């Protein structure tokens, strides 16, 4: 797709909350800095030592759980999907699969840059790639499947 046909926009925290259903303590996306519908979404999550999961993971050394990185990728994927199918209403997004490799520990104070791009999109499901970076370093990358199920079918 040529750059002329791509609309790039950003989303702030309140706009993100109008798209994704997650709320405290499960919001893993602070801002979307690049949103190119059908092409890619890049989000930011600032991790502070105050995050709830550091209480238990781990009490003597705070390390970001891989599961929370998966969640950050999935939430960015929901934004991607929503921008792709903005008309989809009254649906629940379900993570169908995720194959991810964690390449480096993520610490309090790190800023996550989460990029999601499509592998294959359908009307109600998609296979996507997710890449999580801290600074110039890739800390996790993988592929995941997301589906949008009408609430009436759940």
């Amino acid at each position: 797709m040529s750059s002329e046909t791509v609309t790039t926009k950003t989303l702030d925290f309140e706009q993100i909350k109008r798209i994704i259903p997650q709320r405290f303590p499960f919001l893993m996306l602070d801002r979307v800095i690049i949103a190119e519908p059908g092409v890619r979404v890049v989000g930011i999550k600032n991790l502070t030592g105050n995050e709830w999961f550091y209480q238990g993971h781990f009490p003597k050394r705070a390390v970001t759980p891989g599961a929370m990185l998966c969640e950050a990728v999935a939430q960015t994927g929901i934004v991607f999907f929503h921008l792709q199918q903005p008309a989809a209403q009254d649906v629940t997004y379900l993570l169908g699969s995720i194959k991810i490799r964690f390449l480096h520990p993520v610490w309090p104070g790190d800023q996550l840059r989460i990029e999601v791009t499509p592998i294959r999109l359908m009307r109600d499901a998609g296979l996507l790639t997710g890449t999580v970076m801290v600074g110039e370093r890739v800390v996790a990358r993988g592929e995941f499947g997301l589906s949008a199920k009408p609430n009436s079918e759940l």
Partner: protein
Amino acid sequence: MVERTIDQEVTQLIAEIIEMDPAEINPDAHLVEDLGMDSMMALEILASIEKKFRIKVSEEDLPKITTVNRAIELAKKYVK
């Protein structure tokens, strides 16, 4: 020769996604009812076939992937 390769490749791709030994898959077994495939696995199979053979399968053809043999037929339909 080409067709045998497609048969083997598709069987292998499906086996990896549904996590079975390709030799244990009955090519006429129903992927959902007999082999436990779900809709996300179906999409993964479709994407992997597309990637392997550098083809683009229509979304309308996704429900046709009901057995390994049907998937092979579908791949052959698109591979020139």
